[in-house]
């Protein structure tokens, strides 16, 4: 067994963190840090919302549609609820949905991509066809359809969003695996009679792993927008729950009279997606300067 272990055993995660930390003072590293700080800030706000929020998010605490100022930092909405308090609590839903959804699509997309790229042949072609059709389908429409079929609820909406992002993992991982598979050291391992699961675990996965954090954060940014789109259309959440997209759906018809109830929740969506994109773009520059080339090749193919 030990003759297969040619290199030192540094874990994949350890190496990824190492290469990130070694470049954390470059421009790309700073961009990542900015993104991480903003996302952490929003997570902290979401967790400590009961202590930070000046008012209860679901109670009428003042005049209806009061402009920002006085006790109401961001005004009140058409039900007289404090917009600022609702935004603090409202961070919880997008964050948890996005965390569950992106993790779920990673759990489904990664093994499928590994399998498809490694096995090749008919299975590969069939999976590629299915995934490409999902990829070419309008994402929001797909999420609407899945959400409409499985009903309301935070877990249901996470699942609906996860379906949309499985193909992104699949495509990148699969293309990466099928090129890594041609490398001499992988062919050597196979020739030495190493079982497939060990070849994948020891040689293929570590080479592919570098693209996962990048896809993860880019997908997270995109799925915040999909979540917001779904809840803006009134799908997915039971009434009464503070959520940025859902709050906009309740107040946008009154945009002319009380712009603040629509403007501030949207601003926070933009801040969260931008921060997640910062993480993704920065990591992309740091972890895999080669990935851009392979993505471009995938586009051209």
């Amino acid at each position, binding site marked *: 067994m030990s003759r297969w272990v040619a290199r030192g055993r540094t874990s994949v995660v350890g190496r990824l963190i190492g290469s990130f930390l070694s470049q954390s003072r470059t421009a790309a590293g700073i961009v990542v840090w900015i993104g991480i700080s903003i996302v952490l800030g929003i997570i902290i706000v979401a967790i400590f919302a009961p202590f930070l929020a000046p008012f209860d998010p679901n109670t009428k605490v003042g005049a209806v549609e009061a402009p920002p100022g006085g006790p109401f930092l961001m005004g009140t909405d058409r039900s007289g609820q404090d917009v600022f308090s609702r935004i603090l609590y409202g961070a919880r839903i997008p964050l948890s949905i996005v965390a569950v959804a992106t993790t779920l699509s990673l759990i489904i997309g990664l093994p499928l991509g590994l399998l498809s790229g490694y096995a090749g042949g008919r299975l590969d072609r069939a999976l590629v066809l299915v995934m490409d059709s999902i990829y070419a389908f*309008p994402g929001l429409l797909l999420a609407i359809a899945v959400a*409409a*079929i499985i009903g309301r609820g935070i877990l249901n909406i996470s699942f609906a969003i996860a379906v949309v992002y499985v193909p992104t993992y699949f495509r990148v991982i699969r293309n990466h695996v099928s090129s890594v598979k041609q490398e001499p050291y992988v062919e050597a391992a196979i020739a030495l009679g190493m079982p497939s699961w060990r070849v994948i675990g020891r040689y293929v996965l570590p080479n592919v792993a570098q693209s996962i954090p990048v896809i993860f954060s880019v997908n997270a*940014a995109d799925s915040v927008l999909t979540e917001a789109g779904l809840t803006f*259309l009134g799908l997915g959440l039971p009434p009464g729950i503070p959520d940025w997209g859902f709050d906009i759906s309740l107040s946008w018809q009154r945009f002319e009279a009380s712009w603040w109830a629509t403007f501030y929740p949207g601003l926070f969506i933009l801040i969260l997606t*931008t921060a997640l994109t910062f993480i993704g773009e920065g990591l992309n520059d740091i972890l895999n300067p080669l990935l851009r080339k392979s993505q471009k090749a995938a*586009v051209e193919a």
Partner: protein
Amino acid sequence: MTGSTASLRAYIITRTLLMVPMLLLLVTFTFFILRVAPGDPVSALYGEHGNPQLIDQVKRELGLYDPLYVQYFRYIRDIFTGNMGTSIVTSKPVIQEVSDRMPATLELTFSSMIVASVLGIGLGVFAGTRRDRPADFGTRVFATLAYNIPIFWFGLILKLIFAVWLGWLPVSGRFSPRLSPPPTVTGMYTIDSLLAADLRAFVDAVGHLILPSLTLGIVLAGFFVRITRVNVIQAMSSDFVEAARARGIPERNVFFRHALRNALVPVVTTMGLTFALLFSGAILTETVFSFEGMGRFVYLAISYRDYPAIQGAVVYYGILMVVISLAIDIVNAFVDPRIRY
């Protein structure tokens, strides 16, 4: 050259013929997913507290109690005879609903595509040729924000500023109720009014189109800027550009004849992928501007489990996607001489 044209023609014919089995698969899949999923149109329409006897009767009239295979073959037969059924929610023939609304969505998506291409490619070239300078940085900030902005929120802001506060453009809809719409030829108000030589109607239709297509177009432009910029940078540092410079070709010609043409090939290729993005964005944009297009229709149809409407819409979307991807392939064959079919 004749050889490649002939193979391209063969490719187009094969692809067109392949459309039939692909669409058949798509409608079959949709049909069974809808029947397996919980909920049905009649219960969704009448609500949980509807009269059970009435619901039962309507379901029977719609043939929802027939065996699945009977329903399926009836549905396939109807499609081939051009009968898409009647929308259960609006009680209008699906084919009429679709032909009323599809032109609106096409008008919106094409004008947005124009905005996105002009703005996105223009800014992408601008930034790519000024790499790491302030202009490049500014453009990248714009692209990142445009790409990450919630589209419905962006549309609302544009609407508030330009329609409500400044009053320059109409707030919503496709056409002013005080004018009479042009006679229907394509269903697109802009083109129909031009065909009828009705200038007032044309100005009105374009006015209604500006804000929705700016909303959708600018968001998409963020995506185009990124791809264009990267490809321009790559092309400008490539060997053939070096070679062209070495031959003493003026920088202007180097850029337009050599670098730009090569940089735009991948951009054109990715345009095909952005149509999925466009249709997603169109659902939200149509909602914000009460622009009665397919996005709104499909959304309502899905919410109410309106089987005939969903199935009809899927067929049209399917045809549209297949035609678009074929068109993109053909365009690619022309821009990139390396591609062979």
